[in-house]
């Protein structure tokens, strides 16, 4: 037991270092390992910057790798929290409106950048889109979740079932609004293309701002883990049972919900719709025997980071420039995996 606990960080460290190195090396222009190291060092102020275009490439790759790590970790943590909260291993952050809200926010931002806003905004819109889209989708995702939580708890204590149903209803409203925007801008080639492209999710051209958003949110969400991990384990027996054991159920639900929403919103705002990671990673951990949330939530951070970065590196290595965006890839892989889980859990139920 002890050796396993000690060696897990080591394994994750090796895995993440290897994947990050692979991610930095891969790309349309070949760079030597030395150049990558030097360029990264230059970003940290440790050595002289490389030649301008090479330095720019290295910086793009570093931000991309960092973003991918952060997004993977945030989605996996959020998925673990949501599954604990809903006491259902098939739950994911999309249930509480994160994905729908983020899409709507992104679409609104694209409308503003695309010239649908008052001139006030347009005049200073140079370079604004890079900030505006993630910012809007982040805020919208949080607002949608807040709306879900607020409606669900309007009549005193919110049951998880109410939360789920309100989540479905609000998701429907939000995606209706999103579809309306899509429909109305159908003729506007640039705008509709930008909205559509956003829904696929992207890890290209990420900047320090993107990294900051996702890592800051991830850090805050991670702080919640010690306060909800044991509690989520006890909630498996139902809310009343947990309360009888001394769990502050209302607080646990609140903290888990806020932490999950924060992490997932930041991840989706930065990288588009790849919330599927949040469903898959906790499951992979369960397949490896991590059943208790006390362990699962901590493992989710490095495992999620490794999962997304690994998938990204793998497909860039296999397909090169023709690689799919992570959101598309995750749906292709995630759909069948979800079915596999359903079939498996049905067998579990019937044998019990």
């Amino acid at each position: 037991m002890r050796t396993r606990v000690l060696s897990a960080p080591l394994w994750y460290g090796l895995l993440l270092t290897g994947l990050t190195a692979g991610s930095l090396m891969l790309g349309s222009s070949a760079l030597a390992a030395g150049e990558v190291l030097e360029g990264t060092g230059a970003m940290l102020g440790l050595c002289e910057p490389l030649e301008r275009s090479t330095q720019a490439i290295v910086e793009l790759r570093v931000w991309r790798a960092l973003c991918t790590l952060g997004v993977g970790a945030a989605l996996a943590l959020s998925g673990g929290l949501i599954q604990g909260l809903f006491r259902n291993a098939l739950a994911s952050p999309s249930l509480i409106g994160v994905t729908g809200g983020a899409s709507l926010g992104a679409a609104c931002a694209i409308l503003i950048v695309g010239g649908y806003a008052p001139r006030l905004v347009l005049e200073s819109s140079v370079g604004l889109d890079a900030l505006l889209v993630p910012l809007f989708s982040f805020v919208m995702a949080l607002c949608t979740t807040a709306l879900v939580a607020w409606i669900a708890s309007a009549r005193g204590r919110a049951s998880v079932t109410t939360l789920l149903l309100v989540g479905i209803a609000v998701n429907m409203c939000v995606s209706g609004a999103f579809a309306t925007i899509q429909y109305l801008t159908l003729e506007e080639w640039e705008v509709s293309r930008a909205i559509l492209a956003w829904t696929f999710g992207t890890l290209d051209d990420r900047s320090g701002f993107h990294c900051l958003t996702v890592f800051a949110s991830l850090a805050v969400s991670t702080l919640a883990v010690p306060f909800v991990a044991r509690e989520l384990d006890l909630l498996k027996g139902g809310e009343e049972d947990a309360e009888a054991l001394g769990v502050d159920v209302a607080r646990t639900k609140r903290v888990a919900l806020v932490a999950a929403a924060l992490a997932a919103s930041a991840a989706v705002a930065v990288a588009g719709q790849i919330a599927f990671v949040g469903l898959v990673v906790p499951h992979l951990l369960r397949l490896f025997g991590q059943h208790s949330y006390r362990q699962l939530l901590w493992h989710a951070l490095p495992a999620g980071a490794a999962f997304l970065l690994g998938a990204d590196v793998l497909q860039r290595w296999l397909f090169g420039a023709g690689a799919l965006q992570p959101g598309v890839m995750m749906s292709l892989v995630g759909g069948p995996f979800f079915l596999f889980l359903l079939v498996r859990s049905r067998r579990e139920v019937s044998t019990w």
Partner: protein
Amino acid sequence: MVNQLVARDVCFGYPFGPRVLHGVSLELVRGELVSLVGPNGSGKSTLLRCMAGLAELEAGEILLDDKPLRSGSARERALQVAVVPQFLPSLFDVRVEDFVLGGRYARIDRWVGPKAGDREAIESSLVACDALECRGRAMSELSGGQRQRVVVARAIAQEAAVLLVDEPTTSLDPDHQVTIFELLARLASEGRIVLVVTHELNLAAQFSTALAVLHEGRLVARGSVDALMRGEVLTPVYGERLHFGRTDDGCPFVVPRARLARRPQG
């Protein structure tokens, strides 16, 4: 040290449902094992939930040593009151040891984790419930009886002064039923307050210090086993298909039987 748990004029109804408890008053004292009996739907489990502080009362109050039970946090309550619930979900992926560790939740420091004392409490409570052999297994792998003993073990591990137990023997074979009741009686005699909801009238008769009879949301009797295990008291509650008697050593018993004591011919 907790001396008494008192329900005073407790009224309770579920939202959008009829009222379940109509002004129930029940006093539980340290050292007593009280069996709460009554027909299905009489409100036994609801009263137990109320006395555990898990339900918002319509009227009345629950007092633990004269202090309202729901005034403190859930954690403070769990240090004083342990509950054995009637139903739990299947808990696929929970190991027995971790499940019983749940009983220590209120006592374990978030930043320190379980200590040696907690491990000992888990082990000794599993031993007391004759369930030590289950410790490494998953909850979903257990038989109904093993599972029930493990759930009781978790409440014992909680080391609370008050133990509220909802039908702890429904899936147990007769021998293990005796094990659980013996354990509850011992815990009561060591100075705890124990309330058991049960349909096992004969076990209740042997081990309880007192019976409480609930009928249609009202407490119709509370007193010694000798006084209450009689047709005059229980027939109006359970109906007429009960036969009352006494064992050779004078312990009252009751068996269900057809109204006209018909026996198969031949």
